[in-house]
């Protein structure tokens, strides 16, 4: 590994938030955050404050993904600057409040790090989601977490796609990280999934504590899966799906999908093949919440990113 010269310096990450219930029926995050609100001992670290926070309490109360609109798509510049009023969808109002407390997005006053806890019905295992390939603090953090979680696998999904990237609740912070653990049905709490997410958070907070104490993390490589294309179900003129994820693709998140491989199966048993030009790595295969977003799965390309060495800014 060639030297990258002097390390990238970042200020201490003192203000950290842990979001749960951004989708009210994704139970690991809801449960963990409620637990930590009651008793913060497990998330206490020297040199930082980790604030647990339920982002969408009405959706949590109802055990539904959202009330009016998806909170995790609501943090657009338009929404955040729109004037408050009674007519606003609940989640847009909520996005503005969250931006006030933990942002403002893009400003020096924004929280340093926000972890947003999610579950998926897809067989993705433990996944960390990044929004930038050039945030070396985040790259080093995910690499630390991956090593700490081993031999349990922990994948890194990078969504930097110009059209498919979306405005997440965590994006109000300087260093946003999504935690996505599955498979788990909506509204269900599975013990193994809960404990995996809890372990990821433990390692993440350990990393920040180490970083804040002055530890320098050397340059390293990080394997990521970069979002490439959204694939929808075949649909009829009424918009209803006419095929299901093929049994050979179901549950095969992160495994290569080659041109000519089965992709969908129609209700009368016919196979539809993947007709891309090169192998891709599908993920978010058969996520229940994405039927309405016209997504059966997303394809990714595997990439190795170079993370600069990092240390905290000396004062």
């Amino acid at each position: 590994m060639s030297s990258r010269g002097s390390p990238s310096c970042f200020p201490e990450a003192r203000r950290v938030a842990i979001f749960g219930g951004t989708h009210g029926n994704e139970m690991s995050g809801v449960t963990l955050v409620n637990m930590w609100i009651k008793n913060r001992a497990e998330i206490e670290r020297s040199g930082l404050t980790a604030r647990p926070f339920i982002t969408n309490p009405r959706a949590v109360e109802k055990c539904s993904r959202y009330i009016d609109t998806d909170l995790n798509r609501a943090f657009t510049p338009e929404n955040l600057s729109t004037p408050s009023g009674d007519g606003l969808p609940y989640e847009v109002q909520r996005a503005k409040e969250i931006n006030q407390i933990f942002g403002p997005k893009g400003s020096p006053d924004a929280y340093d790090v926000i972890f947003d806890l999610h579950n998926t019905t897809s067989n993705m295992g433990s996944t960390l989601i990044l929004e930038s390939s050039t945030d070396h603090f985040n790259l080093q953090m995910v690499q630390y977490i991956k090593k700490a979680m081993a031999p349990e696998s922990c994948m890194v999904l990078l969504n930097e796609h110009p059209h498919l990237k979306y405005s997440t609740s965590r994006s109000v912070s300087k260093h946003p990280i999504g935690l996505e653990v599955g498979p788990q049905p909506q509204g269900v709490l599975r013990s193994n999934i809960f404990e995996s997410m809890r372990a990821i958070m433990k390692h993440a907070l350990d990393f920040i504590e180490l970083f804040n104490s002055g530890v320098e993390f050397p340059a390293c490589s990080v394997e990521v899966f970069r979002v490439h294309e959204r694939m929808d179900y075949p649909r009829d003129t009424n918009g209803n799906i006419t095929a299901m994820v093929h049994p050979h693709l179901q549950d095969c998140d992160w495994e290569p999908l080659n041109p000519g491989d089965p992709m969908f199966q129609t209700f009368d048993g016919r196979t539809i093949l993947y007709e891309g030009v090169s192998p891709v790595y599908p993920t978010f295969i058969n996520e229940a919440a994405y039927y309405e977003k016209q997504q059966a799965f997303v394809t990714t390309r595997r990439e190795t990113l170079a993370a600069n060495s990092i240390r905290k800014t000396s004062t």
Partner: protein
Amino acid sequence: MDRERLLHLRNKEDVVKLPALERVAVCGGTHGNELSGVYLVRERLKKRRKSEVMEPVTVVTVMSNPRAVHRCVRYTETDLNRCFTDAMLSFSVSDQTPFEIIRAQELNSQLGPKGSDQATDLICDLHNTTANMGLCLITYSDCDWICLHICKHLQREMATIPVRYIHYDFPPAEAYSLDSVGKHGFAMEIGPQPHGLIRSNIFTAMQEAVQLMLDWVRLFNSGSEFEGGWVDVYSLVKNIDYPRDPQTHIITAAVHPDLQDRDFCLLHPGDAMFLSFSGESVRYKGKEPLYPFFINESSYYEKGVALFLARRRRVEIPSIQSSRT
């Protein structure tokens, strides 16, 4: 001599004659986010099978809760599949009455009336569960020979999924689900599948099971004799809720990893049931080993149920034949 051979030695008079099943209903979308049934019904309706008369049976295909299906939710105001008790079916409706209660009465007119001679002969109501239950026929009787024989037929013919028979001991007036409207009926419950999505293997299994059931009905109606035997019946004894905080009522433990996905594996006194968030195991304190099912069904959290427990016993079933012949 064992029981099987004794049965075989009985003469023809021991065949129980039952009326043919002239009208059968296949219902889906009773819970709007249980998608195998929703799509099965949609496909059947698309192929113009709204009402299919194929000698010797008429099959009616029904989307039970179209509003809930449209929104992909279990129900819009109240659980439709709890609205079929005698009391709720005779409830006086007004503008304020929840949609599902009104819809239940409509379905009772169409497929019932419950308890009457005009009622549909057999109702098969399609459901999914997040629990690892394979395929289960759930009904209120442990001596309905039609339902038990259909179960035996599916067990024999289905290779890819276990098939079991569950019995809820409720008298007809208190039977609350759609399937109780028919003279015979059951919920066909298949899992595991998260709500709001469709898994191809689960859909295919349900499609196969419905076809096998209809094939059986046609054979029965044509006069075939179905040899008796036995079926293991799981009878509901009780349910167990999650440990909860006494003040907030929020759950304080998850189904234990040793129990998760182990539906129909015998649970013994002292076995782990829940794992609290602080790491303690909560154990089964009953005196009798019982069979758990509906372990960690998402829609039962709000009903205060983490799992059900059942006794299993072998039920002997006679040979049957339709009384037309």
